[in-house]
């Protein structure tokens, strides 16, 4: 679709963001309520899925390895606070840089593999990192990192009594990543990513260095994922390998995006808005069943989506819109221009 610098859609997005910014003022959103917790997670997971969407959706390279980058970011923040007793910020930056570097080193050989082999290779990498971090003393192995009680505030990116500050941090994260992807959508690199997804040889025949595009997309995606990981650590005040570097976590990046609509700006938000409340509320209400109820429902929803509408919820919305347009003006059949 023809992208403009600023469209009606962007205006809608801005309105939506303003609404999100005012939301904590609503009476149901008490500073420490469960609803607030769910909202924070929706924003966080939408941001994570959007970061994944850069390489997995727009560039078409499905990665099951994103929990590695998420974990590196989380450990970056955690080690800065727990091991070195400082503020998390330098650790966050180092974690992001490291995640980007690891992403390039891992993907360079993997991009030589075509199609599904890339996805399979990334699977293996998660296990390697997960197990190594469990036995690595420097990162405190299986014990993980437990945050000490230190002064709260933005300089330590940590609050105890109120979730409102975390909510605004999550909103900034969301704004940053969604804004970046929106910008990419309208510019050269965004078009090149989609061209590489749709046909690598065609893209190359038009002067696109597809390997460079994929590596850059992967590095950017990993860096942003690490930032999300750091926020996750600061929010939970704890980091351990199974929590951040598991295959479970990797799957969430993929499932949320696919559920919402991969390769679209809105998709990751829609996916997170459906799957995260599902996950948190089932955990809260049916936690006694031994956990995993959310994953069962997750699975069923994904099967439904993939079978019925592979373009995800965004695809469903577009279908409905087309049908409505057709009902309004049956002569035109939903298409807005009359091609001969």
């Amino acid at each position: 679709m023809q992208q403009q610098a600023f469209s009606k859609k962007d205006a809608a997005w801005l309105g939506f963001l303003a609404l999100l910014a005012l939301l904590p003022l609503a009476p149901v959103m008490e500073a420490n309520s469960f609803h607030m917790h769910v909202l924070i997670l929706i924003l966080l997971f939408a941001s994570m899925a959007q970061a994944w969407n850069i390489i997995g959706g727009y560039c078409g390279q499905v990665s099951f390895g994103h929990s590695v980058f998420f974990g590196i970011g989380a450990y970056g923040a955690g080690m800065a606070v727990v091991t070195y007793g400082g503020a998390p910020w330098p650790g966050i930056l180092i974690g992001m840089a490291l995640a980007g570097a690891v992403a390039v080193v891992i993907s360079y050989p993997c991009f030589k593999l075509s199609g599904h082999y890339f996805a399979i290779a990334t699977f293996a990498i998660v296990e390697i990192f997960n197990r190594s971090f469990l036995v690595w003393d420097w990162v405190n192995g299986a014990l993980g990192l437990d945050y000490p009680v230190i002064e709260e505030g933005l300089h330590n990116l940590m609050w105890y009594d109120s979730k409102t500050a975390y909510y605004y941090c999550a909103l900034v994260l969301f704004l940053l990543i969604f804004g970046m992807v929106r910008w990419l959508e309208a510019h050269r690199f965004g078009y090149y990513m989609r061209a590489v997804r749709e046909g690598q040889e065609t893209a190359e025949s038009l002067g696109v260095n597809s390997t460079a595009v994929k590596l850059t997309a992967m590095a950017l995606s990993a860096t942003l994922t690490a930032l999300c990981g750091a926020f996750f650590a600061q929010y939970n005040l704890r980091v351990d390998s199974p929590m951040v570097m598991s295959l479970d976590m990797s799957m969430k990046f993929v499932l949320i995006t696919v559920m919402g609509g991969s390769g679209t700006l809105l998709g990751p938000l829609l996916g997170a808005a459906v799957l995260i409340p599902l996950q948190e509320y089932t955990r809260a209400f049916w936690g006694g069943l031994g956990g995993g109820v959310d994953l069962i429902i997750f699975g069923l929803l994904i099967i439904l989506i993939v079978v019925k509408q592979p373009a995800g919820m965004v695809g469903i919305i577009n279908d409905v819109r087309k049908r409505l347009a057709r009902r309004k003006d049956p002569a035109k059949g939903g298409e807005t221009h009359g091609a001969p």
Partner: protein
Amino acid sequence: MALLEVREVTMKFGELVANDRVSFSVEPGAIVGLIGPNGAGKTTLFNCISGLYRPTGGSILFDGKDITGLTPYAIARRGAVRTFQVVRPLKEMTVFDNVLVGAFLNCRDHREAFTRAAECIALCQLEPLQRKPAGELPIGGKKRLEMARALATRPKLLMLDEVMAGLTSTEVKASVEVILKLRESGITLMIVEHVMEGIMPIADKIVVLDGGLKIAEDAPGRIVSDERVIEAYLGAKYSRRFKAREEGAPLG
């Protein structure tokens, strides 16, 4: 100096020799037609020039520099851009976005690229289709899209691989007009084509391949009466009949 110089290019696939020491040159501003029966090695030669294959032997010079064995994107960046005989639309992107990908190559910012894409869309008569996903176009539209997309890169040399095949004669006429407009704008063209009514009237030079070998290189007017060419296309029998008619003509 020639814009493109193909020197003794040989391409082997195992025992099969698809191109056998083919040499010719393309002068700046010219339209050069590359013809030959099916399997003559035309598309293979295109693939060698555009970097999809690395030739087994010989060298290719573009703009005075050796480009043999460079990657396809490096060759495209130097200004030699091709289309594909078997069309390759970026299916889920719109027609406009397809052309825009090409336009980004030599445009500084996206504003300039949008303008360039719109120009090429108009030139290739794709305006009514521009918002459709490229995968949904009819074949004529897909062929024009191949051309618009390559054109959008502002190439010095545009290599068209059978853009007229499968088109109606009205569509062929339209393509011919577009090609002539391109030459006026200073683009050099090399065209693989089976549709003779399309290529013969506009080419400055025709190169004929048969069985991987170059069998003729001449102006179109002389190519049609070249014995080897007729033999390649129609067989020896017709070639003899044609010759007899030529010789007998003054008497009758």
